[in-house]
């Protein structure tokens, strides 16, 4: 607020015309203006897309294992280091995938929020 030119007091008698003073994104959101709504919807959409992306990866990898085991019966009989592949995957292999996805998600979600803050903070 400090960089604004000094305000000169004038008496306003009629309806205010011309262009309104530019508001920060934060005040737009607080005033529930259309622009504020757009900021909020954009944040929600970005975060939802990220969440759905992570879910899609989970479904396409871990979630498809039962289908893969059904379609390719040989997969269930394959062994690696003496341990059957399904036991190796479900007993241990899926956990690092879950942790890695969680870690990637947190980094991206925080980045999205930082971008949102940079956008709406009063300049």
């Amino acid at each position, binding site marked *: 607020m400090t960089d604004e030119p000094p305000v000169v007091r004038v008496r306003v008698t009629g309806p205010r015309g011309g262009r309104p003073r530019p508001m920060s994104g934060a005040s737009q959101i607080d005033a529930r203006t259309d622009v504020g709504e757009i900021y*909020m919807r954009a944040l929600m959409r970005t975060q939802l897309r990220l969440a759905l992306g992570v879910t899609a990866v989970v479904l396409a990898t871990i979630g498809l294992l039962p*289908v893969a085991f059904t379609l390719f019966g040989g997969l269930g009989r394959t062994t690696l280091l003496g341990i059957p592949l399904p036991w190796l995957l*479900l007993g241990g292999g899926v956990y690092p995938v879950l942790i890695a996805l969680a*870690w990637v998600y947190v980094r991206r979600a925080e980045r999205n929020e930082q971008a949102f803050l940079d956008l709406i903070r009063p300049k």
Partner: protein
Amino acid sequence: MSPAYGIAAVVLVSVTTLLVGAIGLRISRTTSDFYVASRAIGPSLNASAISGEYLSAASFLGVAGLILARGVDTLWYPVGWTAGYLLLLVFVAAPLRRSRAYTLPDFAELRLESPPARRVAGALVGLIGLLYLIPQLRGAGLTLRALTGAPTWVGAVIVAGVVVANVVSGGMRSITIAQAFQYWLKLVALLLPAVFLLRAWHHDGAPTHGLHLSDWVEPLQGHYALYLTYSLIVATFLGTMGLPHVVVRFYTNRDGRAARRTTVSVLALLSAFYLLPTLYGALGRVYASDLIRSGRTDSLVLELPHRVLGGTGGDLLTALLGAGAFAAFLSTSSGLVVSVSGVLSQDLISRWLDGVRAFRLSGVAVALAALVLTALSSGLAVAHAVELAFAVAASTFSPLLLLGIWWRGLTARGAIAGLAVGGGLSTVAVLAVMVGANPSGWPGALLSQPALITVPLAFGTMVLGSKLGRRDLPVHVASTMVRLHAPEAIDLDRGTFHPDRRTV
């Protein structure tokens, strides 16, 4: 074996839990302390506490027993219980913390602005909490029987008693410390015997008899296996976010960001733990396959050291496992009783009593109800019983949270209709299975794993019900969305809802 070690272990865990609770008594003063420990708990302590609370009888005893009995398909239980936290993380963790609600009914009221929706959510918290408490108390009974030969009701009564004493005296802050400790106790209690068991197995020449049966070692061999597996996946992946004692934990994070970081640590802690039950299940196949025939697979973890090692070493390791198992019952039951009595006291009893006394009375009532229901329910496998509570949570609170957080269009009417359909159908299935119904063919499959049907129905009903009455949109939904999604780092108008100053 000599019961002395086992009794000593159970007494030690119970007394420690009570002592930590007594320390908490001095530092918890206000109602807000009781509910959410004033939200002043750091992420690493909180992550241990969440994991400690989450790893219940089902994880400690039940999973290994199921693996012994049914093989590779049951590995989906721990996978799902962990993956549930990933979905909770990406869809729910930060917004739920930012909602600043204490309980799921608080969230329902904040988002839907409807007292009836709050009451329905409160009833469901009670239902899910009780369904989840039953297998904990049952597991406690089985454990004490395996350790000392005492009848099964003794263990259940001990756990209920310790939980009530602890909850009544300390509220949640003491429980946070106790539960963080109990995670590490559970991990060590399962890890250390596993090391000795593996050494003994190796020493025996690494026998593998019993491990090669194709319908045990190969996936999806049974009837309706694909349906049952996917239904289990739906229930566990989506159910975690709807468990009352899990959700209440997120209010103890400092902000949305801390809630996310806590959840990542939880995923790592759970993953480390869940590597172990598989080992026990497989070793059980070699050394204790007679438990399958006698229907006592839930005792596998406790019986293995005695069978494989014997002697004083076996007795000591059994006592350690007993201590870990009791830590599991105590921590999960405490969390459940705290969250259910938080809801009961806020919504029902606080009309007649002040906050803290209402909370204490509710704790006693919940524990008693769970004891009665445990006595009435049949001998369902512990892990399956817990998973059925997940199915109800996945069919009710999961759609409420997912749609409530990410879709502005959800209305109170749609939400209540969805909760009724999802909760009603899944509860019918769960109760039928719990009292021993076991029809053959598709009805049996649907009853034993209802989630693949009931979850989509609940989602569909909520969306449809909301679309039919678009004019009923909550008035303040725009403020609520700002509150749920905007980071706390910026000062914004987030609406006026506060669970301590409710208007209804």
